[in-house]
């Protein structure tokens, strides 16, 4: 009886780990920090959420520019990849037609970089959530 329970646990564990290994990065990409929060890393998740979302919103408030998929040149495509990392924030920005960019202000360029960096930082957070899910990190 005890052996069969232990065997069931052994069989069930890899399945839940692989499920979390897919779910945590996906949710973490969509909502920054959520990949940590669903794995009960509350403080880490909250800090990641605050950091990445604040950086992205500051970029928008500084009148930074958001990149589109069909940007044309290679630097625009790299900018798009960076922006895409922000997940739902990027989708929301595109949907509301925000992030048009103001070339009149020098600091608007900082805003553009803030948004790209927020997306790239979220990629790192997603990788971290994956490492936690597969047990590589606590």
């Amino acid at each position, binding site marked *: 009886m005890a052996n069969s329970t232990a065997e069931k646990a052994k069989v069930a564990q890899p399945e839940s780990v692989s499920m979390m290994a897919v779910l945590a990065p996906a949710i973490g990409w969509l909502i920054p920090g959520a990949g940590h929060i669903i794995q009960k890393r509350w403080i880490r998740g909250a*800090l990641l959420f605050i950091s990445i979302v604040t950086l992205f919103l500051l970029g928008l408030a*500084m009148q930074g520019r958001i990149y589109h998929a069909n940007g044309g040149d290679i630097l625009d495509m790299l900018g798009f990849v960076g922006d895409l990392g922000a997940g739902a924030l990027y989708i929301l920005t595109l949907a509301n037609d925000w992030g048009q960019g103001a070339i009149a202000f020098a600091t608007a360029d*900082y805003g553009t970089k803030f948004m790209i960096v927020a997306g790239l930082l979220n990629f790192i957070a997603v990788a971290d959530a994956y490492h936690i899910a597969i047990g590589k990190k606590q």
Partner: protein
Amino acid sequence: MGAVTITLNHFSAALVFAIFASIVFGITHRETTREMIRYGLYCFAMFVGGVIVAGWAMWVLRR
């Protein structure tokens, strides 16, 4: 984005960037809480120190 606009000067923009990037680096690059805090502070010092050193280097080059 709407009517909300913020204008940061060069240094405050670098400072804000350093704070949030350091938090993410600290959390994602270390295992224990203590190590995370130490590495986050190290990254913050490097970011801000780098800005100050680069600023002085440009001042020297300009002269």
